[in-house]
Structure formats: C-alpha cells, structure tokens
C-alpha cells in the first residue's frame, strides 16, 4: 500500500514542473506565462491599491475635481480610529467574526468531507437525490430567506446569539463544502482505495488514511473559502445580531456609511484589516499543506 501511495502521489511542488518542462520545448510559453502573470496581478491588485491608498489619505483628498493616483498626504488616523476609538467595537467584532468563521468552517469541512466521501464512494439508496437536495437548498437567495430564517432563530431563542448566526452560516457553507469536496474526491484515482479495501482496511480508515491526505490541498482550499464566506457575510449578521458585544466585523463596517455621507478613510481601513485573516489563512494553509506533504513523504 505504501508503494502505491508513493507512486501515484500527485505532484505538488516537485522540481519537475509544467513550466520548466514546457520551456524545454518552447520558451514562448514560459515568457507568455510570466507576462500574463504580471498583467493579471496588476489587474487584481489595482482596486486593492485604491482601497489602501484611500485608507491612508485624508477624506477630503477624495473630493477633488480630479483625484490623484498617489495620495497627496499620508495619514494613519483612520486605522487609529478604527482600532482604538472609544466608540469603536472593532476588536470585539473581530473576535466574534473569528469564532463564527472558525466554528462554521470546522463543522462544514468535517461534515462536508464525511458526506462527500459517502456520496462519491459508497452506494446506497437515494444517494444522488440526497446530494442534489444539498444543492437545491443552496439555491434560495439569502435576500429572500433572511426573514423566515430570522423567525426560525427567534422561535428557537437563538436570536442575538453567535450560535444562531453560525447555524445560518451553515446553510450556505455545508452544501458548498460538501460539493466542492465531492468534486475533488471524484478526481482521485480509485485504485488506491480499492487496494486498501482488498488489504482489509475499513471504509473509514480509507477515508482517514488515504483520501484525506491525498486531497489535503483541496481541503485547505475548501476550508479557506468557507471561512471567507462566513467572515464576509453581512446580511444574516446584521439581521440576527442586536447586542453590540455580539456584532461581527462586516456589520461594524457599515457603521462608516452614514445616510449619504461616507467616512471613506475609516471604511477602507476597516476593510483592509478585515481582508487580512482570510489572506493569512490561505497563505499559511498552503504552506502547512506543503510541509505536511513533505513530512508524509519521508514517513511513507
């Protein structure tokens, strides 16, 4: 079994890669790849640059007949206000968002992988139907569901409660995680598991020992996306949560848009801070996968 795992292990960051292989045949692809990468990055970064530039410039700087690409004068006052202002709830909101996000992600990924494994590998009655039900539940837009969901949470006494919020987040994160993992599990070659089963391993062992490690990159991606979805979720958080100590960050962000006046600087500062956790999660998640990968290779 170890041999099979070794041989069929997909490449992650091994020395021989697509691009260098390509470059042996055709340098043009190599160059094209880099050019595209730079263009794509520029296009991706630009609005983010705008966001950061706005967060460090004076608000009044924006209200000019023509706005400059680079701020005239820099200031950190917006960040200061957001993080430490006496009326600012930001640290508490940050913590709340973290709890809800991590809780939702954990449940979604754990149950998603269990469900995805069963739905792609096992055979039982109504398998396809159950899978599809998950997606059909995902179809209804939050903008329609939020009122009855609120009524539901209200009757369960979970209104104004982080657990209630996490439950509402499950409605979109669990189908999402399950189906994404189904997609990945489907691409894994089945012969490894079959060999393991022939060897006498149980189904769950196979899941734990073979499928999960092989799909580690996918699981990281799914976890990061699920977390980000929950982290940035706004509507349910606003509707369900009342007390200030239970608010999440997206709700706090909208406090910076007041009637028809925008506190751009503070809003962008808060947004910049807010976009860091998913980013860091992704960055470190990728590295953890690689680290675990190489360690596993040595072991096996």
């Amino acid at each position, binding site marked *: 079994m170890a041999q099979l795992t070794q041989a069929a292990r*997909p490449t992650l960051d091994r020395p021989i890669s697509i691009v260098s292989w390509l470059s042996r045949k055709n340098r043009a692809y190599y160059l094209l790849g880099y050019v595209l990468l730079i263009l794509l990055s520029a296009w991706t970064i630009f609005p983010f640059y*705008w966001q950061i530039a706005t967060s460090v410039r004076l608000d009044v700087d924006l209200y000019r007949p*023509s706005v400059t690409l680079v701020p005239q004068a820099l200031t950190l006052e917006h960040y200061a206000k957001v993080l430490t202002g006496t009326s600012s709830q930001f640290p508490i909101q940050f913590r709340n968002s973290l709890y809800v996000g991590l809780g939702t992600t954990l449940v979604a990924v754990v149950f998603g992988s269990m469900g995805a494994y069963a739905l792609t590998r096992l055979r039982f009655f109504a*398998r396809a139907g159950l899978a599809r*039900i998950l997606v059909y539940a995902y179809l209804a837009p939050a903008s329609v569901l939020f009122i009855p969901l609120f009524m539901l949470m209200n009757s369960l006494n979970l209104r104004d409660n982080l657990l209630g919020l996490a439950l509402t987040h499950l409605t979109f994160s669990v189908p*999402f995680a399950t189906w994404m993992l189904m997609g990945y599990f489907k691409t894994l070659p089945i012969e490894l598991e079959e060999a393991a089963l022939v060897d006498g391993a149980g189904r769950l062992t196979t899941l734990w020992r073979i499928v999960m490690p092989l799909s580690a990159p996918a699981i990281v991606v799914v976890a990061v*996306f699920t977390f980000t979805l929950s982290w940035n979720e706004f509507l349910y958080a606003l509707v369900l949560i009342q007390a200030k100590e239970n608010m999440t960050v997206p709700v706090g962000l909208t406090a910076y848009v007041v009637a028809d006046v925008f506190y751009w600087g503070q809003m962008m500062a808060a947004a910049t801070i807010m976009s860091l956790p998913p980013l860091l999660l992704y960055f470190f998640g990728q590295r953890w996968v690689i680290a675990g990968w190489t360690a596993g290779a040595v072991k096996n």
Partner: protein
Amino acid sequence: MATLGTTARRMPLAVPAGGPRLGRDWRLGYALTLPVVLVIVGLIAFPLGYSVWLSLQDIKLGGQGTFVGAGNYSKILLDSTSRIHDQFWNSVYVTAVYVGGALCGKFILGMTTALILHAQIKARNLWRALLFLPWSIPAIVSSYSWKWIYNDVNGIFNNLLMGYGLIERPILFLADPTLAVWSVLLAVIWQGTPFWTMTFLAGLQAIPHELYEAAEIDGASTAKSFWHITLPNLTSVILVTVMLSAIFTTNSIQYIYILTNGGPGGATETFPLLAISQGLRAYDLGIAAAIPLLFFPMFALFIYVLTKRMLRTES
C-alpha cells in the same frame, strides 16, 4: 494515447454485498450523510415553505395578506399590462447575459491563472496570496471601491484616460446603458476569479505527473496534453465550480446594487435585484417571494443535468 489512469478505474470492488434495496453501504452511507442533510433541510425547510406560502398571497410586510393562489405568478409571467411583467422578462434577459458573461470570464481567467501558478515559479506562494486578494476583501467594501473607480467625475479610470489625452469627455461606465453591464461584469469577474483559480489549482495538483511525462515521451504537444490529460481529470472539479459559481453569482447582488442599482433603465437588473427592489424594499412580500421561486425549476434542471454524469456510480 490511452495511457494509465483509465483502466484501473473499472476494477470492481471485492467487498461482499449487503442489503440489496437500500444499497450495499447503506449503514455507513446514511451515517455519514444524513446528519448533514438533516441539518440543512431542518434549517431551510421552514424558510422555503414560508417563502412559497408568501408567494401565494398578496401581502404587505407587517400586514395581513389575502390569498391569491397563482395570482402573483400569472401577473408576473403573463399580464402584459403590469409593470412587473416587463421588468421580470427584462431581468430574465439581463440575468442570462450577466451570469453567462461572468462564468465565461471567470473560467478563462481562472484556468489561465491556475495553469500559470501551477508551474514552478519563484515566490509562488506570494503570487497565490496576491491573486487570492479580491475574494478576501468583503464585497460591501470592494463594490464601493469600484464605484468610485468608475465614477465619471473623479473616478480614477476617467482621470487617467483623460489625463493621457485618450478621451475628451469622461466615459459613463455606469450610466451608459450599453456599457453598464460590462462595467459591472468586469468588477464581478475581478471579485470572483480567485475562487476559480484556487479550486482549479488544487485540482491540478491532484493530477499525477506521470501522465504528463508519458505524454511527453509520446511526443504530445502542450495543447494536446492540456486537452487530453488536464481537462478530463479536472472534469468533476470544473462541473462543481461552474455549478456553485453560477448559483453564487446569480444570487449575489452586492455589486450590482452598489454600482448601478439595476439601472440605467433596467440594464443591469437581474432577478434577485428585482425581487429586492420591487418586492422587499417596497414592502411587497408576495412579489419578493415569487420572483426567485420562478427560477427554481430552471435552476433545478440545470443542476440535475450538470451533475448527472458526476453522480453516476463508478462500477
């Protein structure tokens, strides 16, 4: 060309059969899936049922409703004298253009970026984190950023274009009915591509490298190996991504709402936005519930077809 990977799939499992009608693995299967399904159904069943109930009434928010049966539906679909009818069919068209455009754009950009990132390039993690950025910024903020960027008076696009003398009058990115959809699409594609990039990337990483090496030995070109190795192995990942992204894109209205609010003249009014603006914000709950439910059957069919191959059992 028939190299490894395809043959071994067909090997039947050598495990003895269990209950015939419920399927061989029904115990474990239900144990693993029912909790998930039950939680979701439990959370969604009441809201969905309530929405259906609302859609059968003429009801104002906070008030008593009068039961009208299919009245809302017939007014929206068939009554050509009412305004909501025109708005609805317009929204069908706009939604099709919007979602189709978004899916195409995200697919092309996502696949391209994933292929590039899969390669052995320096500072790869940095590039990946960078390209993940748009997804991590909350849409409530990035939509405002884009709105300012597109502004016809002091938006940076117009400032740059006019500054370099490329145009004389500002381009009305958001106010010109022919441009509005594409402007919104650009912003939406910007925001959603990282999802496609990262899922494709993870999928690419699962393809055994031996396949590519074997193809190279056989003398296949880059394009051929992409077509015959990469795509088939990524099929289920692509299908799932298309499905989830389609649902997600259709239902998320944050960008359209902030950038154009459905205008100008309904050029960017997709059906969820219509449901909100003519239904929810106007306290008209019957319409707000009926419009999304009208799309349900079509979506359900789309999903059924898309996932048919994928949900088929191997053996």
